[in-house]
């Protein structure tokens, strides 16, 4: 799984690519957390345009990052969510905690 990072005007953007599961999530979660701690952004964006698959491990990535940002007084948004990940997030009612925008 690839993680590209971009930091501009206080916004930290992660572009993820590949399949998100328990195997890949550990690494992704660590990279995201380290980068947030280093940059202390006001806003964080997870761009999931490159993520064609996730299982429940992806839910943990969203919720953890959301919690991390909230602790810093910042916010998280999740963008470009494909149909399969969107279905998984909806099944777990993730939208109640973290707003995500689906790819059209």
């Amino acid at each position, binding site marked *: 799984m690839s993680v590209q990072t971009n930091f501009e005007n206080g916004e930290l953007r992660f572009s993820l690519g590949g*399949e998100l599961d*328990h*195997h890949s999530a550990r690494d992704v979660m660590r990279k995201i957390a380290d980068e947030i701690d280093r940059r202390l952004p006001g806003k964080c964006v997870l761009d999931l345009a490159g993520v064609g698959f996730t299982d429940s491990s992806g839910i943990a990535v969203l919720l953890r990052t959301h919690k991390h940002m909230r602790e810093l007084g910042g916010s998280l948004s999740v963008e470009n969510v494909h*149909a399969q990940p969107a279905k998984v997030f909806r099944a777990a009612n993730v939208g109640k905690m973290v707003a995500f925008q689906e790819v059209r």
Partner: protein
Amino acid sequence: MKSENYIKVEFPSMSANEAFARNVAAIFAARLDPTLDEVGDIKTAVSEAVTNSIVHAYPSELGRIQLRCRLPEHNLVEIVVRDWGVGIADVPQAMEPMFTTGGEDRSGMGFSMMEGFMDSLKVRSSPGKGTTVTMKKRILSKARK
């Protein structure tokens, strides 16, 4: 021997095998000409079941996981994920949404996902002996979709 197509694969409980297992199941089901949505459902359910065996059944050592797929009926795929790990003492409780023994890392949504994304889910387990998860999904012919 009954003329029924099936596959049986066995692999060690390494997390790198999660992707392998769900993709094998998806390829097996491909012969029923499923929609992308149905393929996604099967991959999700298998990923959940196999991850459970890796994370919960064998928490501190590597063990054996078996994946079996067959077509018991026209348009019906049956997927079995089996381990010989620690087992589950209280299956109904384990299957409740949000129930987890995995702490911060896990959300307790695995069984709910398998149940919601497949047409049926059966879990057989005994402590110390292991767990067998049997899931079925009917693939509607494209003409009826």
